[in-house]
């Protein structure tokens, strides 16, 4: 018997997880869909892009909560920990739903809703001179032509939230959501403060552009300053930093992967008090 990774056991865990939580997953899918419909209707020229990213990230956190949040319930948590499957398989089930499946479903949902909302708008405003097929084409083109950095920022933000959520869910017995939010905001605050001091001290002439940038938290958190900050001056200033930006992506990717690894080891070391 392979003690660490067995595909049959992994599939059993996936099936078990779905059967136990499908109502919650469907509800979450419904809420996300509704939010996407509203965002698609009201977003104008990327002004609400940060909200898309937050919605995307918090949905992933909610998925994570279902698998690792029952520690204070000794009955369920002991049953989960003693279920004959390796810790790696149990952890991978969390990643399967919280990362792989969630991103897939979110992306399909996003495309479907964009088409759906366009249909509704065309039906509601039949006098629109732009033909329906062109609306759809434009919408799809926009998605495809989005800068790589946008998807990277979205993905890294998602990983940041989800990996932090996962480790909080596994390490703490109770008040996990509180700890998660506390640590999240503490990191963002320290990071923003650090970036703010660095930028204001070294780049005086773009300082004001940063301060009035939309999505202020993400502006500093984001490895790609040019995306979220609408200031052309800032974009121009950082345009020469593309290689640094890509290294920055990579560094974050490694850091978040390490947090996932730490979560796995925490799960292995998890005791029931």
């Amino acid at each position, binding site marked *: 018997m392979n003690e660490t990774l067995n595909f049959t056991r992994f599939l*059993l865990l996936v099936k078990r997880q779905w059967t136990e939580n499908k109502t919650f997953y469907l509800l979450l899918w419904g809420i996300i869909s509704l939010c996407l419909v509203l965002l698609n209707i009201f977003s104008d020229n990327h002004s609400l892009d940060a909200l898309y990213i937050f919605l995307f990230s918090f949905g992933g956190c909610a998925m994570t909560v279902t698998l690792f949040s029952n520690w204070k319930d*000794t009955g369920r948590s002991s049953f989960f920990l003693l279920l004959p499957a390796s810790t790696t398989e149990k952890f991978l089930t969390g990643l399967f739903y919280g990362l792989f499946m969630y991103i897939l479903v979110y992306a399909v949902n996003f495309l479907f809703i964009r088409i759906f909302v366009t249909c509704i708008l065309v039906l509601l405003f039949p006098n629109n001179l732009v033909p329906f097929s062109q609306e759809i084409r434009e919408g799809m083109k926009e998605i495809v032509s989005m800068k790589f950095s946008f998807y990277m920022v979205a993905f890294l933000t998602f990983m940041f939230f989800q990996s932090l959520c996962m480790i909080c869910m596994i390490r703490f017995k109770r008040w996990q959501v509180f700890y998660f939010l506390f640590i999240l905001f503490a990191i963002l605050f320290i990071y923003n403060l650090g970036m703010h001091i660095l930028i204001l001290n070294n780049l005086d002439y773009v300082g004001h552009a940063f301060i009035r940038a939309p999505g202020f938290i993400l502006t500093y958190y984001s490895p790609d300053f040019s995306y979220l900050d609408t200031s052309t001056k800032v974009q121009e200033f950082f345009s020469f930093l593309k290689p640094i930006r890509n290294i920055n992506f990579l560094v974050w990717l490694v850091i978040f992967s390490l947090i996932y690894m730490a979560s796995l080891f925490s799960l292995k070391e998890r005791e*029931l008090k």
Partner: protein
Amino acid sequence: MITIKDLKFWYSKKNIIFEGLDLQLEPGHIYGLLGKNGAGKTTLLKLFCGLNFPKSGSVSIDGTDPAKRQAGFLSEIFLLPEQISVPALTPEKFARINGPFYPAFDPARFMELLDKFEIKAKQNLSGMSYGQKKKAMIAFALAVNTRYLFLDEPTNGMDIPSKAAFRSILASAFSEDKTIILSTHMVRDLESLIDTVIILEDRRIILNTPLNLIARKLSFSRSSLSLTPAEIVYSASGELGPVNISLNHTDLEGNIDLEALFNACIYVPEKISACLVS
């Protein structure tokens, strides 16, 4: 075989649960684990399963360290905790998604046990009473056919007919290759089931003895007329009058009053040990 060597365990250093604890449990027995509140019965069961890790010393089951929680090891053990919490599923569905993890799981036996406990297979567990949930989980625990079965206060929340059904079901499920450990406060519910009694007190095990040996060595009587005060090892007050424990001078194995034995082990452990080794 379960082996514990020089175990030390605490949740907080100010409150050490076990210190220098040694224990060896052979297969083919139903052990009754007794102890006062906070003595560490549940903790010991968790250490057997790998839900808690020793601070020093070792715990091993058939040579495997439970703390590693390897899949193969986990498929040979089942712990039924005192607090039952179940998902909003029917017992049938619960068994369908969890049973396949256990190689020896017998779905037909599960249905049969549910029937004996008068639990409906298609009723949602979340809508059941605590006792019903417990019975459904006991049915599952027995149907998975693991070699090691740990039951923490199994009769808690059960009605009287269910306790009787539980005793007969557990006795019928037992075989020589299995080890069953029952942790309980309610000794009267289970005294007919267990064959070896383990008593935890003051961070260690003060008694780990087969009941037949105890019955050969000690006599439990409700009347003290035939006994001189010097002969009485311990006198425990009971609902039906005092129970006197004395040395058994006959070759016959008498009935054991587990509650009286437990009290005697707590209050006069040296006397009881001396009687058992004599």
